[in-house]
């Protein structure tokens, strides 16, 4: 087991932790807008770390580039998707959550 393997594994573990926190937000946050907020941050960072971890382990430049492309694509899709969902939700009159005393 080389140093690259261990570093890669550590990155992947941290990435999975980010995914967990995103899911927690998806489950616990009160409305669509806060859920989008939690999910987009956690997802993208989590997947980025997993891609980075895989790239470190693969040790091949081509694979690393491919993984970078995967990450950028998911980043684009998730960011644009989240923004589109939020925008349309707002237009359709779903109100943001407010703390009710």
């Amino acid at each position, binding site marked *: 087991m080389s140093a690259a393997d261990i570093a890669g594994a550590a990155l992947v573990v941290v990435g999975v932790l980010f995914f967990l926190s995103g899911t927690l937000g998806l489950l616990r946050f009160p409305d669509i807008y806060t859920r989008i907020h939690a999910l987009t941050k956690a997802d993208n960072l989590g997947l980025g770390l997993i891609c980075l971890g895989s790239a470190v382990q693969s040790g091949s430049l081509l694979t690393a580039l491919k993984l970078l*492309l995967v990450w950028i*694509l998911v980043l*684009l*899709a998730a960011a*644009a998707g989240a*923004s*589109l969902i939020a*925008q*349309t939700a707002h*237009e359709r009159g779903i109100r943001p959550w407010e703390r009710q005393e």
Partner: protein
Amino acid sequence: MVLFDLILGLLLVVLVQKCLSVTDLFGAVISFMAFGLLMAVAWVRLEAPDIALAEAAIGSGLTGALLFSTLGRLPHSEARQPIASRTVGSGPGYWLAAGFWWVSIMLLSVAFFLSLLELQAPGLGGYLQERLSESGVLNPVTAVLLNFRSLDTVMEIAVLLLAVAVVWSLGTVGWPAKQKLSLPLLVGLVRLLTPVFLLVAFSLLWRGNHAPGGAFPSGAVLAAASILLLLAGKTIRIYPLTMFWLRWVLAAGLLVFVLAGMSLMFAGYGFLVYPEQWAGTMILIIEVSAGVSIGAMLMALYIGGEPDFHAG
């Protein structure tokens, strides 16, 4: 690994259950799409990368777009209609029949499995490995699809073309016109993604002969790119040439395949029996035309009717 299999199986079963019984149609469609995603994970687990690629393109993308577009054309009340209560029948006779089917299907699969244990079927993998060098390609699945059992693939493309013919015979739809969307972001996203789609489609096509990929996933990615363009409100401007050329592109896959087969027959080889030195080239030509054609056919199926350029 066992834990992973257990969770995967459980999730699949729960999603099927939800898809078939959750009360609103929208929830059912979302569950169905999630089922497709997890099926792709199952294909990866079962070491079937070719199928995983196809499922990734179809299960998560095209079928979802098809279902959403259908849902969007139904009024909301229909999509929300409680369905669980509206089954075909109920009462003891119904449950007896349902129970009978359940038990018999389960028994059949168990019996089939037990008989397989007896047989210890070796499969044709070894035989295929031996003959792979004759096929002109290096990926065994492509070898089966386009050489050893290419007749099946001709039929598959014919079925797809037939489906387009059936859909067109049911009426015309206006060519989706430019839409007034207040989503400039969408246009930007699509503009950014289209070249990547084309690149991936091309690379899948090219790799088909030595690695998983090939005409079908490539065609699906092409279709996805054009559907994305349509959804973003961008009309693909091919107007003066349109119908004439569109028909030719749709038929190209089948035509090239059949022509290749016939010319081989006249050259004395037999229908789609490639001479060894030509096999690689012929497969490449067939694959490129089939890929483009499949993309066009899937797109035509999505539009859901013969395009009428005057109505759009």
